[in-house]
């Protein structure tokens, strides 16, 4: 690799950004949502296992396996997400916002504010009750790569939103960004 960068010591390093953990409540909220979704899936299998009205032998025979698979997947998926969600932490620098995520599959993602096209503070029903909010930073990288920071206090989310808006207002030369 011919990449050389003599002044590397002087560059700001993402590794050393101080990170703040998000609210531990977020992991519990996600657990509740996952439980609901998997409960519906399990209910479908359970229905075919015990329903007395129709003569669906094949579905009845298959149902125990799908029910078992649903439960195993639930434990693996929701369990992993619960642990991983508790690891979520974010850091704010002058020019970017960084999110650390994951427990086994760890990731660090940095969104340069210059590339933010649109910003939203979102609140689900559970978040509203707990006074929490999610900050979503949209870039031209597409929906899949929206940087979402959940489990912020509403005041913190609003303050971050203002910070990003102020940054954007300063950068007159910005490109493509419009509907901030």
């Amino acid at each position, binding site marked *: *690799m*011919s990449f050389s*960068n003599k002044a590397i010591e002087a560059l700001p*390093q993402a590794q050393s950004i101080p990170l703040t953990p998000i609210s531990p409540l977020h992991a519990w909220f996600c657990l509740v949502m996952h439980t609901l979704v998997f409960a519906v899936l399990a209910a479908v299998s359970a229905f075919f296992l015990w329903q007395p009205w129709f003569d669906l032998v094949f579905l009845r025979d298959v149902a125990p396996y799908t029910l078992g698979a649903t439960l195993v997947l639930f434990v693996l998926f929701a369990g992993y997400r619960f642990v991983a969600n508790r690891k979520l932490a974010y850091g704010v620098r002058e020019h970017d916002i960084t999110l650390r995520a994951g427990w086994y599959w760890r990731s660090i993602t940095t969104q340069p504010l*210059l590339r933010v096209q649109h910003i939203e503070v979102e609140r689900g029903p559970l978040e509203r009750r707990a006074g929490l909010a999610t900050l979503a930073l949209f870039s031209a990288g597409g929906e899949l790569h929206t940087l979402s920071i959940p489990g912020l206090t509403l005041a913190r989310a609003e303050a971050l939103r203002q910070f990003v808006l102020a940054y954007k207002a300063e950068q007159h030369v910005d490109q493509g960004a419009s509907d901030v």
Partner: protein
Amino acid sequence: MFETGWQKLSPIAVLFYVARTWYHVLGNVFSWLIPLIVFRQYILEHLLITSGVVIGLLALSILWAWVSYRMVSYQLDNNGVDLRTGVFNKQLLQLPFDRVQNVRIEHPWYFRLTGHCQLILESAGSSDQEIMLVALKPEFAERIKAEVLAVRTTVPSAHNPPQHDQQHLHQQHQDATLLNQRSVGDLVMYGIGSNRGWLIIGGLFPFYGYIEDRIEPLLYQLGIFNDGSLPIWQWLVTLLALFAMLMFVLTLFSIVIAVISYYDFKLYRDGDRYLARMGLLSRKEVAMPISRIQEVSVQQDWLDMLLRRRQLRYSQVGGMFESKNILVPAVTSSESQALLDDVYAQRDRNIKMTQASKWLLAVYATWYWLPLVALTTTVVVLLAGWSAGVWMLVPAVLLAGLYYLRWRRWGYAMDGEFIYLQSGWLGKKTTLIPLAKLQQPSLLQTPLMRRRGLMSIDWVTAGGVHRLPFINEAQARAMYDFALFEIEAKSPNWM
């Protein structure tokens, strides 16, 4: 500059709406072909009713086209265009010129006789944010296009920075230099190299039963399904011949598609834009400001390697949709170098790629190859017994070979301006991504990777996401920090 108030399109536009309806019907081939086959007996027996229904449907489609045409009106001023459409669902689309990403003028075959054309204005958003004005006089279309380009460059709006050079705007294509053109011979090579005929096999899937009924007697005649009276070599030769015949037909088909869609392909450079024109039945024109190009890739499938040709692709914002990109088919090595020199002159021609870590091969083996082989072998053994299961060794070994080749192909490099990526299975694809186009970087690591000092980077641009898997952790962190620094300190434009 333009007439004020709501304008109607020329009545010639009805042709467009008729053509659109028929294309739509033909495109949804499976929705009518299956009923057609199912009821073929009835249809053939009642030809009078059938022809009545066909004529009725044709008349209905023309009536629908007329009504659709009547409902369209547009309004132009120097800042943008408004378009009203819809018969049942009325729509008003407003598109300011400074939001326009791409201007295209097309000359479809149904306007050939009258010499009209259609103008397509694409915005940064989704495809329903696209405005299409049909049956325009070419001079009028060119005028709108000039206006759009003028607004885009003179108004330093938030959407479009004043990146274009004022001068080139008012000079139309006269100044455009021809960068590349493709002959029919080149297109034939493209058709062979990127055989899209395979798609037909998938498309025919619902009819396999029907086809089998027809072909089986033929195969019996040829002696394919005989009782063993034919020697095995003869059986194999016949089978190979049939396969070769099938491939031949598919390749012919692929060549025809390639020639129709890329006929008389010409790539121009007009100031700081690329312009591509192509197509036999309908001429398509794609204009792409160079600053909006997110990445350029050079791709060679295995047949391309034998033919020594490659496809060069300029991808722009939303590059996952092929219609937004410009593909230069079947170029030679030197032509591809010349095109790269034009777009990315600063690139390092002889950059040395770093290979992916051998642990990536281990990941391929344990996460992809092993589960796939274990699953298929289990199924085969359960269904057909151990003697059949042994044969699964052959595809397993072949697959292992493929994964090995894929791992060998991996390569990456970075200098102060670009990321260079190389990937592929049998073929080879090299991608150049300017650092300045970065939207968002991610670093990924598992504890196992950490122990080995490895990391992956996800590199998100407006054209898509690229992963650099299993690279040296220190290098990954340095690339990450350096790219962020470049973006944040220099605020480079990405479009």
